């Protein structure tokens, strides 16, 4: 048990005022170099920590602290780790998921908010925070009348600060782009990295699929949309550098699969791929166990594993070691390397979430699109 809690209980169960002082005097969870202690305060029959860490059980019961309404749980946590969690409260037969009311740090995703546990040594990177000195880019709307999808598709386009039609820019197409904006602060990151000259000023197209569980799973329509509709339209509307190494695809989770699949349909059209926690499910023997949504993914990845070929010049891949996809991602790396592509694979002490993907953007973007900071002194 954590030393602060032991101290609180040294002379028996603490009084309400002592508990108040303990709660008000500390930041939760209680973080130590190799451990973290979660504390919850309320009457309940049972309290569980619900966390999304592969390899550990999803729920772990918290210990009721004798004579009080406090619950606590200490677990090992390697330094610089980060994961998201909630408390599951069981009371009078009802179960409810709650955010950690003692922890102000939260992360959002399309399904809502989670509490965030930042392990010892984790610090949110400064380049993900608004920098008043960074010039800000703008977002423009673009509508595509898609023949492939038989309907209109809306795309947001990030234009860098001081965008000029007389200059030519690299292009990055981002799957789940609006989610990257909302949950991974992509615009702030782009503004900051461009301002710091760590990446060149670039145009970024942000796409969003209305049916990503189908379109991002190796759907040939999606690849055609990217290669034969979106890219030609962007090329027509924007001043872009006409070289494959100045064109990239980016995506996370199934978005990573969508990138890899599009790159397999149009090899080397996009020289740079940025794939985060790609859901690269495959089966070596028998049927996969990931559910029917993954059937087309497995067909595609199995096919590529059987007959691999060059997809792009450079691929940056990242994956959290607290997510089950680490196995699939690790498996893919040597196969891609063997084709002669430059691969940069980064593992993070994090899980399948947007802030993990946010925190890796600098490494990925600056490796794929190195900026002029070495030569430019403004």
């Amino acid at each position, binding site marked *: 048990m954590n030393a602060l809690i032991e101290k609180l209980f040294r002379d028996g169960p603490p009084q309400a005022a002592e508990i108040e002082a303990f709660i008000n005097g500390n930041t939760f969870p209680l973080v130590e170099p190799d451990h973290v202690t979660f504390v919850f305060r309320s009457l309940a029959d049972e309290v569980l920590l619900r966390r999304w860490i592969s390899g550990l059980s999803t729920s772990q019961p918290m210990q009721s602290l004798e004579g009080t309404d406090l619950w606590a749980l200490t677990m090992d946590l390697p330094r610089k780790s980060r994961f998201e969690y909630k408390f599951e409260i069981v009371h009078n037969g009802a179960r409810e998921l709650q955010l950690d009311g003692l922890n102000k740090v939260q992360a959002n995703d399309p399904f809502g908010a989670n509490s965030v546990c930042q392990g010892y040594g984790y610090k949110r990177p400064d380049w993900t925070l608004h920098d008043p000195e960074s010039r800000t880019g703008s977002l423009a709307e673009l509508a595509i009348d898609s023949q492939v999808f038989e309907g209109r598709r809306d795309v947001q386009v990030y234009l860098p600060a001081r965008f000029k039609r007389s*200059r030519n820019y690299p292009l990055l197409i981002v799957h789940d782009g609006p989610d990257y904006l909302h949950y991974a602060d992509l615009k702030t990151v782009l503004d900051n990295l461009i301002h710091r000259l760590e990446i060149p000023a670039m145009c970024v197209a942000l796409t969003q699929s209305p049916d990503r569980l189908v379109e991002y799973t190796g759907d040939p329509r999606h690849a055609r949309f990217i290669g034969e509709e979106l890219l030609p339209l962007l090329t027509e509307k924007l001043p872009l550098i006409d070289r494959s190494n100045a064109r990239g695809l980016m995506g996370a989770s199934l978005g990573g699969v969508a990138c890899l699949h599009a790159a397999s349909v149009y090899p080397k059209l996009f020289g740079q791929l940025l794939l985060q926690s790609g859901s690269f499910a495959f089966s070596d023997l028998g049927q996969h166990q990931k559910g029917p949504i993954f059937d087309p993914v497995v067909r595609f990845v199995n096919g590529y594993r059987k007959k691999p070929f060059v997809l792009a010049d450079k691929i940056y891949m990242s994956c959290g070691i607290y997510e089950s996809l680490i196995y699939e991602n690790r498996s893919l790396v040597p196969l891609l390397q063997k084709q002669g592509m430059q691969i940069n694979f980064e593992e993070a002490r994090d899980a399948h979430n947007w802030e993990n993907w946010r925190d890796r953007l600098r490494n990925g973007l*600056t490796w794929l699109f190195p900026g002029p900071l070495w030569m*430019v002194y403004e």
Partner: protein
Amino acid sequence: MAAQQVLLGPQTPVANVRRAVEAVGCEGPVVVITAGWRDSEGEIDELQDELGIPVEDLMLYHRAEDIYLREPKLRELKSERQDKLRELQRLYRMRLKPTLSAARDLCRTTGDPELLRLEQNEAILQVRELDQHHLRRIVACHQDYDARRKSMEIPTASAEHERVHKQVKNAGLVLIAGGHVAVLLNRLRMFRLGGLLAQKTVIAWSAGAMALSDRIVLFHHHAPQGKVDAEVLDAGLGIVNGKVLLPGAKQRLSWNSSKRLSLFSRRFAPASCCTLDNGSMIHIRAGKQVKASNSFVITHDGRRLALAAP
């Protein structure tokens, strides 16, 4: 009036170029060189607003592009030189890495101080010699280019040179903005402005200041893909001597690593490593530093010391 140079750091977030203009005074037209901005050359509205006086951009980047477009032989010669310079830089890097790594290891290790000092000095000397060797190779490459360029008849280039020289001669003040240091230096060289600028009052910031110096050092301790060794790029115009100028040093250097800074400083000795941050100003007249503010020199033991006026 004696030639003078005022060296400044980045002009954001707060510009001090106006203060520099007031310090040196100005009689005659003001011209500016923004070739380091490349495609954005000539976008000087913000600068004009800051100064409140008319400024003419010499447009060296675009003028050079026009010349190369019209003179394919010159373009070919230039591109041959650029290829050679790039290759020299690659080869230099290959040697620099192990040489510098040995010096770094020796500066970090502990042992008999007397024995160690000699080995450290020797290792730093080797780095210094390599830097000097590289610089000689670069200078020889430029000399070869100049000799071959002289034998070519390029009327377009000659006429454009004359026009630029006339503008600079008539100017009361020359400003040189920062930007891409290699591009800027290339354009200054192409129009052979070194000798002329040495006789003028020049205010230069960041890459502009580096271009005036006798040795250009590229540096960044916080590069996103990990540590990169500082490297000598080229000889500058040699108008400012004995100083390695470090624009944006506050952000670019690891100030919490005195060993790293010590090696940096000793490597480039006897030149002094001077920071040029936002708000810095170093005023040099007739080759002598007459004033300095908000600029620091890195000491041989890796500390930051205010650059003192004489």
